[in-house]
């Protein structure tokens, strides 16, 4: 079935909602538009609706034009979704779109880091997640950057200026925050503190990848993959762990990987259902 359809993917995270419009057929996939919105203290279901409407209106489309609206992440509450896909499944497929021969995906989100081994159809073969402490998450970076008076967009570049990084506790977010307060009072420079946090989180990424025996191409996705300092730090630690840093890649659209995967799986499911309906006739 090679008919071209519109699909939408909406990835509801705990900090941001990522929405993406796609032109999908079984042979070609084209991202038409995308939108990212910070939830702040609003109702995620409302922000999701507004994001969908924003993309539709911007592209002069109505909801009826969308053959399949697929949600992922926390998106089960999206009222207009046709189907929901689990986040590891969508990140796996999204990563393959970004890098068609990817072997592993590391979804570095606000709450968790997930390392996923995938096959070349985007099927999840194995996975590991960080434990229960938030010190391995993007939310932790946001909290610390707020404490340091930095915008979240600044922390990546800031970390690249570090000369003597100071690493906080990697066990507990509360202890790590206390460590950071202590570092500030000791006069440690902001770049060194920020770099230390990047190292702490990257250590967890490498630990997850090691537990999967990762030895192929690794695509970083999720919000933290947009942070150039974080990508750089993951590569540095990978090299120390005898992994090839060249195998670790991130893209401008890495933060949209979940939404991309949802839109692709939505299109795939739409066509499959249509074929099934035709066969039943």
């Amino acid at each position, binding site marked *: 079935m090679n008919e071209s359809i519109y699909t939408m993917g909406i990835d509801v995270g705990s900090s941001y909602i990522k929405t993406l419009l796609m032109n999908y057929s079984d042979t070609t996939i084209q991202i038409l538009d995308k939108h990212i919105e910070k939830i702040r203290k609003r109702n995620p279901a409302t922000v999701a609706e507004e994001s969908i409407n924003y993309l539709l209106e911007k592209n002069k489309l109505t909801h009826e034009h969308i053959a399949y609206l697929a949600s992922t992440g926390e998106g089960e509450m999206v009222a207009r979704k046709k189907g929901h896909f*689990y986040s590891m499944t969508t990140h796996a497929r999204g990563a393959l779109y970004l890098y068609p021969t990817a072997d592993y995906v590391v979804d570095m989100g606000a*709450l968790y880091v997930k390392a996923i081994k995938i096959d070349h159809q985007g099927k*999840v073969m194995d996975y590991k*997640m960080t*434990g229960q402490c938030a010190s391995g998450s993007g939310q932790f970076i946001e909290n610390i950057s707020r404490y340091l008076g930095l915008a979240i967009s600044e922390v990546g570049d800031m970390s690249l200026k570090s000369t003597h990084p100071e690493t906080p506790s990697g066990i507990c977010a509360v202890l790590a925050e206390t460590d950071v307060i202590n570092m500030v009072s000791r006069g440690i420079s902001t770049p060194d503190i920020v770099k230390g946090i990047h190292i702490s989180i990257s250590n967890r990424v490498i630990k997850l990848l090691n537990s999967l025996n990762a030895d192929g191409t690794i695509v970083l996705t999720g919000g933290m993959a947009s942070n150039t300092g974080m990508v750089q730090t993951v590569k540095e630690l990978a090299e120390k762990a005898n992994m090839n840093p060249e195998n670790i890649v991130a893209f401008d659209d890495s933060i949209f990987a979940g939404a991309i995967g949802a839109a692709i799986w939505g299109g795939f499911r739409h066509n499959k259902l249509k074929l099934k309906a035709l066969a039943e006739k």
Partner: protein
Amino acid sequence: MYEIAASALLKEVMNNYFQDLKTRSKPLAWCTSVGPAELLRSFGFDVYFPENHGALLGATRKAMDYIPVASKIGYPSDICSYLTSDIGSHIQKSTPLTKHYGLDAQPIPDLIVYNTNQCREVQDWFSYFANQYKCPILGIVPPRHMDEVKQADIDNVSSQFKSLIPECERVSGNKFDIDQFRETLRLSKEATLLWKKTLETSIQTPAPISFFDATIHMGPIVVLRGTETAKAYYKVLSDELELNVKNKVGFLPKETSRIYWEGMPIWGRLRFLSDLFAQHHSAVVASTYCNSWIFDDFDERTPFESSALAYTKIFINRSERAKLTILKDLINDFRITGVIFHEAKTCFNNSNSRFGMPAKLKEETGVETLIIEGDLCDLRFFSEEQSTIKIETLLEQISS
């Protein structure tokens, strides 16, 4: 909506058990859940199991109120949450036994007996109460983490069982009667075999009893071993489930995966987890936990030796190698397609995910394994969201 009809009888059996404890017509012994209950009953003791109270504190989610109370007197919240919640409940003079069974407090013991075949924590836990109640306390300390239970081990534990007799005679006022012990053990074995039969009905598809239901229906095999009541209850339950198997009636209309639960139940989230698996047509059909009350080595002809063997051979007291073999057999028997390892943060002894077991099991069986973090009672260690992500991904990975 699938329901097990025997649940009404279960409620009655458990209520009667607690009402008997309330009337205090017999001397009362406290015992660990895999302790020498049959020997104690043969002296005429009623037997009470603090672990059952721990499970109740977990299931009613009261544990989190009591754990900080125990922490205040030096029992930190990262040690056994049965211990901390039970001690906290005692200090607070408050227990869900009041609401559920009309008991003002845990019944006061005349004798306390533990077996460290599960963990050393029970010794410290029970010693606290022995001190509180100025009550005699006896312990069995078997060899631990065994590949095989050898004759020397049986002799060792058997002689420890025998050494309990004088104090049991003194406290109960009854002389030891070997025939009474044999009879209690016979009843216990018959109940335990019926419990095994109950659990094994879920080898079939559709499975008639889930792990989550079994954690509730296991009440009598824990607290009433060695009684006619337990035997009669499991006859009713196993008959009902066998009939369901015959009629192809299961707790899920459709099974797309069959899961084994390794480790302790998360008592306060049984319903949540049961619903989560059911939504994904995933049948959780077997567990280490429920299987731990199958004592098919009991033999009334050699009551001391066979008790020693059965209680020393339990899963939790075995080496990693022996545990792996047991798990592989159960995975094979129950046609398991995925294994959940519950890493209970306050129960190191009953968490088997920390020495490479999930990876080894996957390597040797090809069955996917998943570790989820949580706890038996302390839900502060359990993240619903994180566990859901992990479980849903596993189920998608393995579902047929």
